[in-house]
């Protein structure tokens, strides 16, 4: 049975090599498509949160990436940032578009999340995202009724935690933008 130990190892090695070879090929083939999709999704998000922008460019400041949006005359109309934070079930990534000069949020778009479908997943819905359209910079309060002041955010019913998490991610994004672009402080 000595022969068989060698055969066992040989079988697994050959299978492993064939598998690695096939997967390396698959990876090479699909990677460009995956990168293209991610770039497209990012571009769509930047334009969605910076209304009126016709072009944008990535700027790195203090190790953070910002997206500066420009209108047709080439004037900078706002800055967006991709902010990440813990949600109810996993990480949430939000694109936040702001006007640092006027100290207001243009709008937000949730890019990635793992929240509960039917509840927390509504953070991607228009109704929740509309909470942040044209909001002044500041500390927000999540309320369980329609917002009455500009510093209030209406929670999704049954998903207060997800709503609060997104709100604090947005607050963090605003602070990052303020620090880099000097608005306010």
């Amino acid at each position, binding site marked *: 049975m000595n022969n*068989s130990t060698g055969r066992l190892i040989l*079988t*697994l090695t050959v299978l492993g090599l064939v598998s690695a070879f096939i997967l390396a090929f*698959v*990876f090479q083939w699909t990677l460009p498509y995956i990168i293209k999709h991610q770039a497209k999704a990012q571009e769509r998000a930047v334009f969605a949160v910076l209304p009126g922008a016709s072009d944008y460019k990535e700027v790195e400041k203090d190790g953070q990436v910002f997206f500066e949006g420009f209108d047709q005359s080439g004037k900078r109309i706002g800055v967006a940032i991709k902010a990440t934070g813990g949600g109810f079930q996993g990480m949430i990534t939000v694109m936040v578009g702001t006007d640092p000069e006027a100290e207001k949020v243009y709008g937000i778009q949730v890019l*990635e999340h793992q929240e509960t*479908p*039917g509840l927390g997943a509504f953070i991607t819905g228009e109704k929740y995202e509309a909470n942040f359209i044209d909001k002044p910079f500041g500390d927000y309060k999540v309320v369980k009724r329609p917002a009455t002041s500009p510093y209030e955010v209406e929670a999704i019913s049954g998903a207060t935690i997800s709503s609060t998490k997104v709100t604090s991610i947005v607050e963090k994004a605003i602070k990052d933008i303020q620090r880099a672009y000097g608005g306010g402080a």
Partner: protein
Amino acid sequence: MQLLNDFKNGLWNENPTFRLVIGMCPVLAVTNTMTNGLAMGLATTFVLLASEIVISLIKKLIPNDVRIPSYILVIATFVTFVDYFLKAFFPPIAASLSLFVPLIVVNCLILGRAEAFASKNPLHRSIADSLGMGFGFTWALLLLSAVRELLGMGSMFGIQILGAWYQPMVIMVLPAGAFISLGILVGIMNYITKNTTRDTHCH
């Protein structure tokens, strides 16, 4: 005739979800919408088909002692392929199934069929078996996700079916609703076929 029986076996008599009760993690996890259920069913069917074909072809070359590791290796390779394929060409589906695509590797349905069927039967019968089991799994996922999506969100495949008068039962799309509706569906299946589920599980 034998081929037809192999095919029908998975669809009904030994339906993986309702009769064998194996591979339950994805059944519960991704059936909150019908789109997810269908995508998961087809992805699993593909991996099952491809793995059974390869295993049926190379079964004579593999020493008995490393059978299981070799099968897992074959399955993991195809799962990685599916994962990258979905990410490249169907990114929204890949995003909503997320973790459960790689978990097809440990879906006991696939290893179970590889071990119980493809390792003992010729190629054409293995193909029939994998298609039967795969589609059996797919329609079970579709049925469960139809119940959950319709009751939980009032829609099917994302299209609103029930009007604004319908107050969605949010519990149906939550984990608790998955367990309860699957329990009731298995019970109904038992009632239809007049026998109780075999108390087997994977392994």
